């Protein structure tokens, strides 16, 4: 069984990605200097550098895809977690606290659910000031059965 999760980034998502890179590395110039110094010794910085360079360009298309060749993921995709994913995707949620409030759910349960989704790469929780902003990496989820 193949589970494919896909997301085509909208302008808002691209801005989130840029904010994420800024909070992680400071400026594009700083990151550029870092990758020129560390080269292949720091592969995640090289990837961030290439992503930053591309999405800073106007009209850049940005598509993200996650493939899971196993049904294990369904153990973690509970109805409540799918509801979280849908809510984050359709609403601009500022923090985990706001998300818990909007869904009228307990903060800790929402936090635990987001961490489980983050483990699969379905959401990210970059820091924005004192809060963590939940960002969805899912637009569609497709299940394909092998022959």
């Amino acid at each position, binding site marked *: 069984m193949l589970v*494919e999760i*896909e997301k085509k980034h909208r302008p808002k998502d691209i801005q989130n990605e840029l904010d994420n890179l800024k909070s992680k590395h400071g400026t594009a110039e700083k990151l550029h200097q870092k990758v020129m110094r560390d080269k*292949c010794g720091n592969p995640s910085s090289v*990837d961030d550098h290439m992503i930053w360079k591309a999405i800073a360009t106007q*009209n850049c*298309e940005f598509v993200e*895809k996650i493939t*899971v*060749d196993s049904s294990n*993921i369904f153990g973690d995709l509970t109805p409540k977690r799918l509801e979280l994913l849908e809510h984050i995707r359709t609403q601009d949620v500022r923090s985990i606290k706001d998300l818990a409030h909007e869904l009228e759910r307990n903060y800790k349960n929402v936090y635990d659910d987001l961490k489980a989704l983050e483990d699969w790469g379905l959401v990210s929780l970059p820091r924005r000031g004192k809060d963590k902003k939940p960002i969805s990496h899912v637009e569609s989820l497709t299940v394909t059965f092998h022959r």
Partner: protein
Amino acid sequence: MPLPRFADDKLRITKERVWIHRNEVVDAIETFNENKLEFFSYTYKVMIEGSWVPVVRFDNWEIGSHYDKYDENGSLVTQQQCPKRTFGEVARLAKEFRRNLVTMDISEL
């Protein structure tokens, strides 16, 4: 595992992750200009103490198509030029050989 192509795009970036096992993934970044692949990186990573640590990576950063091997701390130990691989090929290698890839002569695979 091709991603959708956009007819009139100039610059496109794709980010893909294939789960090999619960704590093992292959991450891909590809950038295209006018549908021509400019940059690629395909990195087989394992989760160690809550962090993704690179094991083997194929990319064309700086010196053209090559692979890098890393130790258990994620420090670069080997770098060698090799023909370009596709993301599908790298994912297949990672699924088949997993952590043994680090000790294998990848250029022969």
